[in-house]
């Protein structure tokens, strides 16, 4: 076994202290019929019984990885190919960050704790909210946690009054279908109902639909930019939700908040809870994970927030220091009555995002956001294909190909290009539509190459 330090002499002297003849004797409380059934062909690891050297393992993995390399990426839909400053992962990969546990021993974890406090501050600044948690798993499961939180908050507010739609949440228009799927699968077990308010012909949610609901829901969820990359009329939706007594939940891409209005400033009252996925903030796409989900909210709802929270306090000498706080919300204290079962979160990715946001600063993040929009505008201009929706888009947009999009995506892939997402599997009425995305990384030459390849594939298939 490659990572054991024990010499034979060590083993002998350790067994002597224990008073055992051999290691097998240490397993003498386990029923013998359960022991060692996994030998020979039934053994757990692949490949050689003896295991690979690091060199062999790296060669094996590199061969696999090489098979999946592609050309420029024009696929977004929740995972985005941004530039990551070199310093981000050089620092995040330091053993002191990467191999530390959850900071339960605060005095021995001030590095992680202060960093998370800085992260909470940065996310609060981006969203305009009062507080942020120290992460949940991802955007999809984070939407589920946010819905559960909104329902809890609604039940507290309506104590003693009839429940009505309090265990129902409405989705306004095009929210990421994979987020919605994850959320349904998670909150459904608590009898919470998710109703979909359809998007209109322009691809946007209709604010009037919110007040048209027969029973007001606990919350209205709106994604900005929405799944189609379009800018929703978030002010009107927020106001309509509040008018019918529902909370407004904003699902956002934090990168876009370098430029877009902070959810706290939506409408007259502002969003009540903000969630999203932090992948665009210095985290590689890496097949969709690990990234991190985040939830920000108002101070008044902080006790309903799931996940860890870091607070600043003082030590015995009166000096400032950091510690996990409000732990009475969490599973290790509150057990069956906790706000969530989450324990392990996505801390290392929060580390990367915090370093990323420090390096980008306000101007850098704004310019990344505006470059993403500008490159996507370039893509639209380079193509002779119509947009499916005419509402303003941010850095993704839906193109109408006039024929099934899935085979076009396959053709593009066979030429080593990720040409976008065929929408048919997610929206049956959009099977001839392609969702494309461009980030600040796409060059004029990438865009020309993409436009030629896409139009060529469309022409050949027509």
């Amino acid at each position, binding site marked *: *076994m490659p990572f054991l330090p*024990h010499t034979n002499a*060590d083993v002998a002297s*350790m*067994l002597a*202290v224990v008073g*055992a003849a051999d290691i097998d004797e*240490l*397993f003498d409380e386990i*029923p013998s019929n*359960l022991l060692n059934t*996994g030998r020979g062909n039934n*053994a757990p*690891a692949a490949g050689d*019984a003896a*295991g690979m050297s*690091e060199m062999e*393992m*790296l060669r094996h*993995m*590199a061969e*696999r990885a*090489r098979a*999946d390399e592609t050309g420029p990426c024009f696929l977004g839909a929740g995972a985005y190919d941004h530039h990551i400053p070199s310093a981000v992962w050089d620092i995040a*990969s330091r053993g002191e*960050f*990467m*191999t530390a546990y959850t900071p339960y021993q605060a005095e021995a*974890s*001030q590095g992680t704790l202060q*960093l998370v406090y*800085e992260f909470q501050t*940065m996310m609060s600044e*981006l969203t305009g909210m009062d507080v942020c948690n120290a992460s949940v798993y991802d*955007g999809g499961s984070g939407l589920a946690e946010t819905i559960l939180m909104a329902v809890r908050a609604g039940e507290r507010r309506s104590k003693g009054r009839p429940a009505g739609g309090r265990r129902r949440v409405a989705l306004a228009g095009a929210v990421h279908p994979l987020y919605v799927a994850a959320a*349904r699968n998670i909150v459904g077990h*608590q009898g919470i109902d998710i109703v979909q308010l359809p998007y209109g012909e322009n691809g946007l949610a209709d604010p009037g639909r919110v007040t048209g609901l027969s029973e007001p829901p606990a919350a209205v969820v709106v994604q900005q930019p929405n799944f189609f990359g379009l800018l929703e009329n978030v002010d009107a939706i927020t106001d309509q939700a509040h008018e019918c007594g529902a909370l407004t939940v904003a699902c956002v891409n934090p990168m876009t908040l370098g*430029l*877009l209005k902070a959810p706290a400033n939506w409408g007259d009252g502002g969003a009540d809870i903000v969630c999203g*996925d932090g992948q665009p903030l210095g985290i590689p796409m890496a097949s969709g994970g690990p990234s991190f989900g985040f939830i920000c909210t108002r101070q008044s709802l902080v006790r309903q927030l799931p996940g860890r929270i870091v*607070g*600043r306090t*003082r030590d015995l000498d009166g000096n*400032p*220091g950091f510690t996990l*706080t409000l732990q009475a919300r969490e*599973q290790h204290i509150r*057990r*069956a009555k906790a706000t*969530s*079962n989450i324990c*392990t*979160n*996505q801390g*290392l990715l929060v580390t990367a995002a915090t370093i990323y946001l420090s390096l980008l*600063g306000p*101007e850098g993040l704004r*310019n990344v956001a505006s470059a993403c929009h500008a490159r996507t505008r370039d893509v639209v201009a380079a193509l002779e294909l119509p947009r499916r929706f005419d509402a*303003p888009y941010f850095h993704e947009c839906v193109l109408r190909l006039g024929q099934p999009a899935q085979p076009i995506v396959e053709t593009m892939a066979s030429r080593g290009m990720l040409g976008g*997402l065929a929408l048919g599997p997610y929206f049956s009425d959009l099977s001839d539509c392609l969702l494309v995305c461009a980030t600040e990384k796409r060059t004029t030459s990438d865009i020309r190459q993409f436009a030629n390849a896409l139009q060529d594939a469309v022409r050949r298939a027509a």
Partner: protein
Amino acid sequence: METIFDLARAQRRAGAQVPAPESVEDLPKTALREHLPALPEVSELQAVRHYTRLSGLNYSIDTQFYPLGSCTMKYNPRGTHRAASTPGFLDRHPLAPVSVSQGFLACLHELQEILQRATGMGSVSLTPMAGAQGEFAGVAMIRSYHAARGDTGRNEILVPATAHGTNPATASMCGCIVREVAVGPDGDVEIEALKAAVGPATAGLMTTNPSTCGLFERRIEEIAAIVHDAGGLLYYDGANLNAVLGKVKPADMGFDVLHLNLHKTFATPHGGGGPGAGPVGAGELLAPYLPGPIVEKTAEGYRWTEPPHSIGRLSAFMGNAGILLRALAYALMLGSEGMQRVGEFATLNANYLAARLGQEGFDIAYPNRRACHEFIVTLAAQKRRFGVSAMDFAKRLLDYGVHAPTTYFPLLVPECFLIEPTETESKEEIDAFVDAMANVLAEAESNPELVKSAPHDLPAKRLDDVEAARRLDLRWQARKRSL
């Protein structure tokens, strides 16, 4: 230490990271923000130095012995990090077509098979993103199974009184009611209490084995029979699998479904809180309910598939892929022989450490039982005699340059330390920890105030948790610059 915001000055920037400005005149004004967010304005060197210095304030596996019980803080091989950081993996888009994903899918399929053989379960889904999400998947599968049979009255999940908090919290998230089953003085579940607890409302039992007391549940087969006879199913919480990896398979013990903590047993880093990965395995009965997507091998290559009665996806894509790749890289380096050594040497180290601490005068909570990969020391006597609590003891250990064991868990044992050295620690490191424990014990007797006011040599003195919760300060604000 100063925060990054204290270092910031208006208009300072890390210029190499700032793209050229672009016009966004075409976007509606109402959608845009009026002021830039108050992110830090620092130079690249300032950011690099600040976060490098912050890292130095942490204890970590790479820098300290970290015997945190139930957390399996073993060495995280650097090679696995490098393997997962290969560009083809890092740059792969989660929705990339299968035709350009065969390398990644082959890796996942290989890991599925390894985990199937390690646990004895016929099918594995890799998607849950942490142990608690794996637990959620398992309980949701049990619920779906009962519901599919029209057995709708089963909404109770049984857990031993020593269970980790995620077990009852998970049961609640799945809409179940939690019933605790008593644990006897020998650390095993009380069979009579279990018999009294099961019935027509029993959906299942969640438990670890070894238990959170670090003891192998000797009557696990009898427990399985009682739960199964009552119509319930058995969930294996893999938090403590490291104790028996390569030695005992959960399926052989009678479990129907399980999760593994790859960030424990398969050596992926804890990252200061995460990420983890909590793959779920199931036998024949529950395999159709596994969360998707799963990788399937066909004559035409690998592809994604959904189990027929899947509880569905629990995250947007397919879980913490990068962690799965690290776990695979680790398993490949272990080989089957190496994997069998994991449980053996984790157990050797724990038993050696327990024996040494016993010799130094510490009370082992279950002295007549064999320790598995971890064991409990109770400091109740020291609390009584010197007024020094387990928390004080833990804080003083930090001064000796070792991380403290898990404190006050399981709740059953007063003033307890749950101690897990893991297999990758050398005899010398373990001996040094024994010396530190012995020194603190001597100090507790001769100078209890020294221990009660610890730590003394860390970046912060003892922090005031009560103050933190009473006067919430959850974000930096400019007006607090003077603090």
